[in-house]
């Protein structure tokens, strides 16, 4: 009799663990999922499609990438740090459409950096077009 009373008391003291397990499983699933989210940073080139060709009477600012890794603008070789000032000083109209012409063999890393510098200089839209071999 005495023993039974004791066991009853210990029953009451016991914590119900099932909600705890529920919660732990939910948190586990949540954190597994949260780590699989893709968190990318990058640059977006929002160029307008050629729906209004009349809005571009002047030639857009064009950068050319040679296979050897040079950046050419109007035939002269320029450095990466010269792009942003060039774009900044360009006419407002040509800022809307900057063209990066890449020759086969040039590196995507350099092309991305050219686009990045052009955006830094205030470019609104950049189009990347491949040159024929």
């Amino acid at each position, binding site marked *: 009799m005495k023993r039974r009373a004791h066991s009853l008391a210990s029953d009451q003291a016991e914590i119900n663990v099932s*909600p705890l397990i*529920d919660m732990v499983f*939910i948190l586990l*699933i*949540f954190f597994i*999922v949260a780590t699989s*989210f*893709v*968190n*990318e*940073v*990058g*640059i*977006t*080139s*929002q160029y307008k499609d050629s729906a209004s060709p009349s809005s571009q009477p002047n030639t857009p600012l064009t950068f050319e*990438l040679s296979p050897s890794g040079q950046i050419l603008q109007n035939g002269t070789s320029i450095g990466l740090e010269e792009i942003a000032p060039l774009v900044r000083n360009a006419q407002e109209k040509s800022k809307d459409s900057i063209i*990066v012409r*890449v*020759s*086969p*063999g*040039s*590196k*995507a*890393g*350099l*092309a*991305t*950096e050219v*686009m*990045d*510098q052009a*955006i*830094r200089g205030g470019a609104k839209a950049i189009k*990347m*077009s*491949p*040159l024929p071999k």
Partner: protein
Amino acid sequence: MEDQEDESINVSPLIDVVFILLIFFIVSATFVSLPGVEISRPNAQTAKSLQKNSILFAVTEEDLIYHGGTEVQLTEVPTLIEAASKDRNKPVVIQTDQWADAALLAKVIAQARKKAPSVSIATRKPR
């Protein structure tokens, strides 16, 4: 007193299940298939955080295009975007290796442009 306790329905398991379903649907809506290749991203100073729920393509150093863990051809890109987007106009993010061919990257962007509202290039985090 005891009768009343029996009559009231215990709602906590219901809430549990509803929460699990809620999390499941949130997750399945934002799930993206990774290209499944390791690339070294190019640097950029103006890099901004891109939209999470986007279609990913990878261009590797060997000038191969990957999507969802398998190699794909350049001409398949618009079809794949259409299949992955399911009329929800998802943006496209291209993970390019910095030593990949820029002409191929330009071609992939041009192909993706046909179907996607915006095409971005994934870069390293600016310091």
